[in-house]
């Protein structure tokens, strides 16, 4: 029952694409490609849901030989366990919703059918990646989704920015993928696993338990993680994702928020068993750093999609952090919750953009040009923001498009970690708890640091997400002309929003994650360090977090059993602490952003312009705003700008630079080398030969007596030479 189901899940979208491609050859296209693709996805969704009650929980791989060489065989196959099923459902669900949304959003686009075909291809690749039971299969799906992302980012390829963005996305991720491939090769030869299949007898996971080459295992782990760094846009390879926003918004929602970028997390989770303390620490740190860096950057963005993009990066960092810190479940939990609410946010922003875009539509339908005639608008670090994405043109939309507003608000609350009724809170709390728990369990200073970072990140997230909400939906419209054009989106677009909003409440996720539906696989190479060294400051930390000295004291030198229940205990404590803290920071963040972006409106425009004298008075009374502005905001903003600068100039610089530099100097010089040196040598030889010919010609003077001299000379020479012999 499993195999046919999965086959259907995979083949349905593939078929949709194939039909498009084949008809395309004949310069024709299917009348309603959109419905076709959507239907395909819905079928897939149905099957996935059916799988939910069908297979689980007994995981079993179904494989066929793909490449068989002598004694080595690479097999392709499915592997189904709870995680797979969850991923299947998430992907199919979000994908279907995005399909539906796009029917409305992409309406009237010159390449409307092509868009859906691409979406189907992407869905197929993503699903293939998810169900694959071996690294090679994952790698294949991995690259295919990369291709689709390339095609979809560059969907409006007339825009140079889009053309650049898609290239950049592909190349940046490719760098990571190469790392992943090397990692695979190390697993294959260096660790002598001689296979790529993960599960079952002779699979990597069974082999990994027995190997003791920790060093190479760590290296392999990190290298494979490189793939995830690329795909999930972790520092330092994250810069492609914001640019990827050049693609149509549904694409951003599907690929660059919910599914593809999450694939990195999924991969890391899949490779959980091969992680060693060192490799997982690296992962955790990269995750943590990404989380904070991206969050701080998000604060100063005005392009609504860019804000969401950075927030996505930051959230992905969270998940990585979680897995790195060993809280497998938390990571995947956050993956699913994030998939829903972030997709919702993007679609919401899409609906906003659409609202504005309708206005553009009757200006000119062609996307190529709106990139041009917006040069007047504010430039954000070089690349101009399309006006329909610039939050400074928005504001007060909540009345204009209530559904969008409410749904987005829900998503925002969820991502900001507003307690108890929103799924985001639970998953985030699980992560924080997990990290702190690991910290306390191991007394590892590293994990305390990471916890701190995560906490900050949580706060900042809340801050900028609400900034987005306030700037977009609250207050007075800043750009009246555009505001007048704005309108609520058609039902095809709002329905997906509503569905996703529903999913942003804990219900579904809790089904999966709160009753051991998902169990972390064993990590043979990670166990709590014996006789952990307890630095004094962590002692203080304990007291801070409300553990008694006594408890802290018997941390040292406990037996294994004590270790384990101590660990359990630590996690208990950690969760409570984490929950409290996260609520606090979230609240703090929301409050601040309310103060800045909601209240500030008063002072700035209205008062200052209309009632000058009164304004001065008020102004003298309340210096708070200025104070905030002057001190806090500038401080925060400045700090964030700093990050932004670093991010844009350095990392972007490197990524873009490499291509140009190699092309301009290195490759050019090689081309030169090719022409001058390699060819040059050959040509020299030729010339020398030719010259020799000329010499000999000159001996041929035409005077007979010279010839006779040569004859006699020859004779004498011969005799002299051979006389000596």
């Amino acid at each position, binding site marked *: 029952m499993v195999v046919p189901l999965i086959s259907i899940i995979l083949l349905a979208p593939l078929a949709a694409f194939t039909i498009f491609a084949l008809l395309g050859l004949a310069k024709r296209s299917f009348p309603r490609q959109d419905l076709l693709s959507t239907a395909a996805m819905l079928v897939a969704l149905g099957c996935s849901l059916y799988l939910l009650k069908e297979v689980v929980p007994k995981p079993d791989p179904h494989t066929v030989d793909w490449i068989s060489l002598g004694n080595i065989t690479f097999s392709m196959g499915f592997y189904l366990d709870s995680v797979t099923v969850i991923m299947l459902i998430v992907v199919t669900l979000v994908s279907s919703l995005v399909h539906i949304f796009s029917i409305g959003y992409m309406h009237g686009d010159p390449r409307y059918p092509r868009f859906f075909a691409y979406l189907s291809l992407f869905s197929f690749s993503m699903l293939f990646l998810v169900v694959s039971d071996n690294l090679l299969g994952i790698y294949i799906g991995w690259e295919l989704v990369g291709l689709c992302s390339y095609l979809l980012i560059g969907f409006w390829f007339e825009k140079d920015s889009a053309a650049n963005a898609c290239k950049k996305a592909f190349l940046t991720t490719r760098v990571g993928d190469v790392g992943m491939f090397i990692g695979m090769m190390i697993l294959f030869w260096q660790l002598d696993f001689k296979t790529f299949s993960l599960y079952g007898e002779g699979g990597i996971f069974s082999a990994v338990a027995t190997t003791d080459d920790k060093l190479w295992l760590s290296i392999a782990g990190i290298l494979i993680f490189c793939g995830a760094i690329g795909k999930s846009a972790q520092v330092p390879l994250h810069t492609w994702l914001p640019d990827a926003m050049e693609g149509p918004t549904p694409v951003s929602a599907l690929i660059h928020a919910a599914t593809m970028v999450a694939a990195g997390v999924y991969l890391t989770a899949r490779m959980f068993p091969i992680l060693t303390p060192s490799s997982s620490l690296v992962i955790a740190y990269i995750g943590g750093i990404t989380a904070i860096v991206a969050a701080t950057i998000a604060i100063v963005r005005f392009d609504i999609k860019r804000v969401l993009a950075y927030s996505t990066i930051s959230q992905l960092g969270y998940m990585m952090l979680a897995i790195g810190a060993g809280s497998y479940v938390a990571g995947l939990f956050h993956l699913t919750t994030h998939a829903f609410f972030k997709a919702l946010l993007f679609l919401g922003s899409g609906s906003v953009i659409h609202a504005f875009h309708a206005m553009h539509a009757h200006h000119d339908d062609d996307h190529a040009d709106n990139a041009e005639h917006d040069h007047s608008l504010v430039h954000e670090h070089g690349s101009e923001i399309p006006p329909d994405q610039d939050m400074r043109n928005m504001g007060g939309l909540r009345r204009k498009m209530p559904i969008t507003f409410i749904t987005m608000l829900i998503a925002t609350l969820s991502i900001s970690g507003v307690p108890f009724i929103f799924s985001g809170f639970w998953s985030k709390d699980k992560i924080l708890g997990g990290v702190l728990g690991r910290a306390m369990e191991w007394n590892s200073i590293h994990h305390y640091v990471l916890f701190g970072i995560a906490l900050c990140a949580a706060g900042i997230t809340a801050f900028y997400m609400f900034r987005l909400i306030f700037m977009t939906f609250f207050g007075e419209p800043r750009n009246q002309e555009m505001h007048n054009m704005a309108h609520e989106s058609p039902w095809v677009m709002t329905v997906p929003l509503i569905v996703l909003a529903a999913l942003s409440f804990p219900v579904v996720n809790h089904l999966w994650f709160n009753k051991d539906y998902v169990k972390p696989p064993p990590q043979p190479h990670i166990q709590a360090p014996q006789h952990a060294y307890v630095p004094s400051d962590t002692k203080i930390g304990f007291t801070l977090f409300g553990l008694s000295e006594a408890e802290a004291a018997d941390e040292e030198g406990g037996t294994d059993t004590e270790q384990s229940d101590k660990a359990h205990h630590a996690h208990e404590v950690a969760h409570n602490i984490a929950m409290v803290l996260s609520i606090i920071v979230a609240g703090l963040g929301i409050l601040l952003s309310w103060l800045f972006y909601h209240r500030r409106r008063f002072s700035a425009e209205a008062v200052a312009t209309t009632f000058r004298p009164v304004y001065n008075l008020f102004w003298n009374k309340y210096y708070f705003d200025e104070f905030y502005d002057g001190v806090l905001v500038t401080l925060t903003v400045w700090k964030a700008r700093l990050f932004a600068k670093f991010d844009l100039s350095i990392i972007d610089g490197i990524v873009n630079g490499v291509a140009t530099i190699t092309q301009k100097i290195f490759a050019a010089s090689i081309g030169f080398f090719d022409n001058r040196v390699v060819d040059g040598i050959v040509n020299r030889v030729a010339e020398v030969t030719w010259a020799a010919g000329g010499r000999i*010609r*000159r001996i*041929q*003077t*035409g*005077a*007979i*007596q010279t010839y*006779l*001299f040569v004859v*006699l000379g020859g004779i004498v020479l011969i005799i002299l030479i051979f006389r000596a012999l």
Partner: protein
Amino acid sequence: MSLQHYLVISSILFTLGIFAVLTRRNAISILMGIELILNSCNLNFAAFSRFVIPLEEVEGKIIQNIDGQIIAIFGIVLAAAEAAVFLAIILAIYREFGSIRPDEVDTLKG
């Protein structure tokens, strides 16, 4: 007179001939040089035939093998023939070039 004398003379002749051939700026003199060379060879043959080949006795008579002399005679004949042809060609050259200086006959080169 022993073999050496003949050989010395013939070598001198040969050398003179070569010298003439290489240095003379007149086709006729070159021809003379060639004649010298050929004659030095004839002298050699005769001399060798006389001194090297042992006398042999046939029916009580001592007989001298004269292969060498024969070759020499043929040599003289051929030398004459060659001279004839050479002179004819020199005539042609003179007709075409108005000169028999070998170094002026050098249109074909390279």
